[in-house]
């Protein structure tokens, strides 16, 4: 549902999507209406996707579906071309290996009773990839990569600031070398100066690990910094999707335009 038909400059064959939603709808039990309706999306490798919209638009619901944490009431979810089957344990392992996530609140997303070393090692341990001993160097490398000091591993989450905690969460997400990183408002709880640094870190990780981001955000400037593709949701429906430069640079839908116009800007 791109905005305006237009001549594409170079027809690049799009690579097979890693994750795909086809005509997905979600209705909560007892509710009269769908919270998400007829959404079709594809996450192609190397083309990070942003889901944009205001509260209640269904962004987080879609992300939970992409993560396999919720099932749509209609439509299909595909991972590497196969329908996502929650009971297929072999697929589930492959899925967890390839798709990791970072949540919005760095205070509630890290287990306060565990040391950072154990938190970051969790994906490696639960996927059965490593023992505690063999995980240690990988954990150290991941912590170093996200810019945390080496002694961070021995400390507890409460000893870190919000920005540092989000770095711990990112370290945990990248430690098993996933292809896709799903992030729900990863920087919106952070101060501006910290936000810039974490956005930079995510941009670097995208580059060097060929990581594809799927990000939910209400912050359009963060979206524009990190994602090649943008999909705009309004009250559970996709109103516009396409290249970010196009969607945010020349919005076709009035809702997208309204979102853009509402962003407070500094006087020039």
């Amino acid at each position, binding site marked *: 549902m791109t905005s305006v038909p*237009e001549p594409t*400059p170079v027809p690049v064959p799009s690579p097979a999507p890693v994750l795909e939603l086809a005509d997905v709808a979600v209705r909560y039990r007892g509710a009269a209406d769908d919270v998400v309706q007829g959404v079709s999306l594809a996450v192609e490798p190397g083309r990070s996707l942003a889901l944009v919209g*205001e*509260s209640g638009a269904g962004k987080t619901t879609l992300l939970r579906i992409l993560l396999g944490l919720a099932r749509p009431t209609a439509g299909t979810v595909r991972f590497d071309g196969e329908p996502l089957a929650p009971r297929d344990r072999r697929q589930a392992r492959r899925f967890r290996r390839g798709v990791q996530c970072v949540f919005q609140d760095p205070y509630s997303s890290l287990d306060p009773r565990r040391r950072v070393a154990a938190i970051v090692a969790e994906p490696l341990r639960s996927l059965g990839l490593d023992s505690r001993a063999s995980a240690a160097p990988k954990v150290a490398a991941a912590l170093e990569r996200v810019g945390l000091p080496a002694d961070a591993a021995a400390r507890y989450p409460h000893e870190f600031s*919000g920005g540092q905690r989000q770095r711990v969460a990112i370290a945990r997400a990248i430690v098993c070398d996933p292809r896709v990183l799903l992030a729900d408002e990863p920087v919106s709880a952070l*101060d*501006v*100066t*910290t*936000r*810039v640094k974490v*956005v930079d870190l995510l941009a670097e990780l995208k580059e060097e690990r060929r990581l594809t981001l799927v990000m939910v955000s*209400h*912050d*359009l*400037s*963060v979206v*524009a*910094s990190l994602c090649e593709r943008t999909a705009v949701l309004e009250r559970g429906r996709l109103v516009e999707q396409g*290249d*970010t*430069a*196009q969607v*945010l*640079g*020349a919005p076709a839908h009035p809702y997208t335009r*309204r*979102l*853009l*116009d*509402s*962003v*407070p*800007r*500094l*006087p*020039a």
Partner: protein
Amino acid sequence: MTLADPLPGPAPLLGVRGLTVRTDDGRTLVDDLSFTVDSGERLGLIGESGSGKSLTTLAVLGLLPDGMTATGSVELAGTQVVGAPEKRLTAVRGRDAAVVFQEPLTALDPLTRLGRQIAGPLARRTGLKGRDLRAAVTEALVRVRLPEPDRIARAFPHEVSGGQRQRVALAMALACEPALLIADEPTTALDVSVQAEMLDLLDSLVREREMAVLFVSHDLAVVAGVTDRVLVMKDGRAVEEGPVLDVVTAPRAEYTRALVAGARKLESALDLRSPR
């Protein structure tokens, strides 16, 4: 840097001199802060988390939590707030200064209908009762551009949206026609388009009333839109003060420069050149 030089002429509406907030275990959270807000003036207090900006607003209202003590001087419309007994403060709050907090869900009483919550301060100021009071409540809701004011007056906080709740909180603060409106991150919890409407509303309401505003936020762009002058705080201290335009276009302090650069960097990502 001129931080609150003693000005000749009438005393400012709010005069803060050497305000220091300490915890009982000896940590200093606000350190020797001085600033003034004149009648009708709009001052922005900018800082990141932990800079002491919210504590400053609480100290101005004499609302510091237990375990914290303020020293120095806070003079609000002629009343010394620091060390004042609760009884004197009750008279000051609402009439001289009213506040809108970040999270309306915690600022409003969940078990009381919204109309009744506005009626409280309104009745105290105007002495209205019964039908007249109800009419005044409706009017207060209309003034903050709430649709269906009668429905909202009957609703409980959880039954209306976040933006509507924040408007109710604003209506409550304005009900007493305070000389100074303190707004502590009033739009941070709201969606962007709701935020834009709220800022616009706030701006026009305080302009109409020539009300002074102390606007606290971490978001430079938001503050720049609704204030004339800003004070930048870091670790409990003022690092820079000046007219909004000067501070965002030519920041002097290193910290302010980093703050402005960060905001501009994120913002510049939005200056997309469309392929069309």
